[in-house]
């Protein structure tokens, strides 16, 4: 007994605990790691003060472009002075509160919907209502709101619009394509395979070119489809093919027994898919699906190439003004931050839902 107490009283050597211990374990374990740590630290010590000097100490925030050219550091004025144009683009100046409110509604709805247990009928109606309100705010024409044609939709609202509807519409389409590809019917199967492989084989930019320069000729005389909607369709068709491949992975990962059990219950194909297979398969593939959706969000920036004014293009438009040429680094850093925040929150969001779904399927909940 006395011995045990004695042993407990012996403390680990000071080099194994506390700050020193942590340093030894994580930074200086071994010769190579020590050298690497020192090199990296030296590099960071040289670099970080320089960056801080440039970005914060020598920088200017609320000046005109001329004063910016004299400043030694970063010119954040390029953002602060042009923030309304960067965000809202060519949307009529005095009506820019409308897209702002629409974006706030969208973000608010998304934040509210983050809890799985809030997903019920009422939320569904709320979404329908919110979408209608957002559409009304953007398009106008009712209740005394001045109509704004879609060619004037630009900046961040356009980016969010393209990605939100791109994601919303491509998901069900992708699931249908995946089911088609797994189907026993040869014609349907081969059509789906051809579609998926063809779309996955070409870059999005060719799809956008197709939508902007080629597709109008495919329509009957006199029918035209709005430019924004065409780009939207291209993004949806493109993303759906990728989602289909991911969902197929989920379907293949399902145990054969699940199918057999469902069939032996007498469920038909649609019932089986809807009630047994898809809920499980889609859950397995949440992480890769989110990866695809994040890509879709980033890829909306490609509409720059077909002259739609999303947030990247409004920024470029600012940079081509004589007052603000030469500050692309600052402007691009700002846009990169916006994209980063959006993508990052998307992946956090999905992880949250994924966790809640896991919890839901513990036995006592069933």
């Amino acid at each position, binding site marked *: 007994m006395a011995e045990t107490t004695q042993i407990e009283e012996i403390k680990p050597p000071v080099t194994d605990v506390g700050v020193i211990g942590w340093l030894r374990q994580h930074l200086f374990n071994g010769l190579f790691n020590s050298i690497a740590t020192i090199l990296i630290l030296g590099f960071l010590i040289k670099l970080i003060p320089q960056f801080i000097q440039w970005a914060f100490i020598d920088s200017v925030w609320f000046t005109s472009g001329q004063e910016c050219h004299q400043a030694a550091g970063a010119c954040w004025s390029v953002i602060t002075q042009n923030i309304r144009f960067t965000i809202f683009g060519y949307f009529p100046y005095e009506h820019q509160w409308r897209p702002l409110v629409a974006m706030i509604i969208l973000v608010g709805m998304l934040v509210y919907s983050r809890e799985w247990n809030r997903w019920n009928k009422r939320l569904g109606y709320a979404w329908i209502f919110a979408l209608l309100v957002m559409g009304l705010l953007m398009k106008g024409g009712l209740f005394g709101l001045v109509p704004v044609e879609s060619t004037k939709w630009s900046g961040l609202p356009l980016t969010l619009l393209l990605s939100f509807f791109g994601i919303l519409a491509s998901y069900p389409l992708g699931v249908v394509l995946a089911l088609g590809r797994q189907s026993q019917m040869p014609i349907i199967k081969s*059509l789906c395979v051809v579609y998926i492989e063809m779309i996955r084989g070409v870059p999005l*930019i060719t799809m956008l070119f197709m939508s902007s320069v080629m597709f109008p000729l495919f329509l009957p005389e006199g029918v035209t489809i709005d430019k924004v909607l065409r780009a939207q369709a291209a993004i949806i068709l493109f993303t759906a093919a990728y989602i289909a491949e991911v969902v197929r992975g989920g379907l293949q990962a399902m145990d054969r027994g699940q199918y057999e059990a469902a069939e032996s219950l007498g469920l038909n194909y649609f019932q089986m898919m809807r009630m047994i297979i898809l809920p499980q398969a889609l859950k397995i593939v949440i992480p890769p699906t989110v990866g695809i959706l994040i890509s879709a969000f980033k890829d909306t920036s490609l509409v720059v190439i077909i002259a739609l004014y999303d947030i990247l293009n409004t920024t470029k438009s600012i940079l081509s003004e004589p007052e603000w040429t030469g500050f692309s680094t600052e402007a691009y850093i700002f846009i990169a931050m916006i994209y980063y925040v959006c993508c990052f929150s998307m992946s956090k969001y999905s992880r949250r839902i994924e966790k809640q779904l896991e919890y839901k399927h513990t036995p006592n909940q069933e």
Partner: protein
Amino acid sequence: MSSEQNSNAKTYFWNDEKTRAILYQIVTAAFVAFIGYYLISNVQTNMEKQSIASGFGFIEKEAAFEIGESLIEYSAADTYGRALLVGVLNTLKVSLIGMILTTILGTFIGVCTLSTNWLISKIGTMYVELFQNIPVLLQLFFFYALFYEIFPAPRQALNPITGVFITNRGIDFPVPASDPVWGYIGLAFVAACIVIWLVRRWAVKRQERSGQQFPTFWVGLGILLGLPLLTWIVNGAPTEMDVPVLKGFNFQGGRNISPEFSALLIGLVLYTASFIAQIVRAGIQSISHGQTEAAMSIGLKPGLVLKLVIFPQALRVIVPPLTSQLLNLTKNSSLAVAIGFPDFVQVAGTTINQTGQAVEGVAMMMVVYLTFSLLTSAFMNWYNKKIKIVER
């Protein structure tokens, strides 16, 4: 639907599963065929009605535009066909170099994120987070702007090493003056590779038989450097160089790497590497820790554990997603059009501009990228199979 389930007294033909399947398919096929026919007939009516030209006849015509950089001889007097070929080769060039670099960088960063060194793994993770979440097009714009905003004009060129000049026109560096010797050295290099392959095969066999190890790496390096060097000396060791000189507006002579190419390459490599790092990381993590411990316990050093035990197994997990990332890189190279590198999409775009034949132009773009995709996946499938057989 549920009522159909219950009616089992008499089976109507539409309740028969097989008949129904055929019916569905016929309906779908007819629908797709109808849509296809409808769209194509629309194109035809539109084109005829407005007398828009069609067909691929323009391929034979003189292109009459210049292309900034080309791997083959090209001038404005050549045909559209050749111009498009130049575009294809440029796309291949940037894709191939990009694939190699991004695989190396991605693997390196992937290994870094698993490092026991806290600083290295944090930096690796931060890299992945950062570059994954920013659109590649934005990165391209950023790097391109950086190139022409930071570097000086040709007359104030940076000159870090004798003969190498860095300007906002790109990097100019000397190359050996044309001499048949360089051709021979190329052959010697290929020969060296073959010899090394044979040596390695022999060394592996010997090790399996007798357990004796052979320093393949050092011998290989010796052959790889030695054989070309020998060829060079035997042929009189020519040292004449084609050095870039500032003449008029630009540097003449030597080789030039343009800012467009560099920005495109750097953007694509950094972006794709962040995805590959994640794949490599997941691949390594998929190997159970017992493998590492077992390898350590037979006395292998950490580097060798990675090389001999972990990697060969992890590759099976890594290769399929890696393939699709490398394909993505190829496809993303089409963004070159935004920063002015004359890749295939850019050349085809100019062709559309000049001929006004959008349908043909876009169709060609799709066919070319589809071919790239199919070839890449065919290669990777073959490689996949090969790995599987070796590993068994």
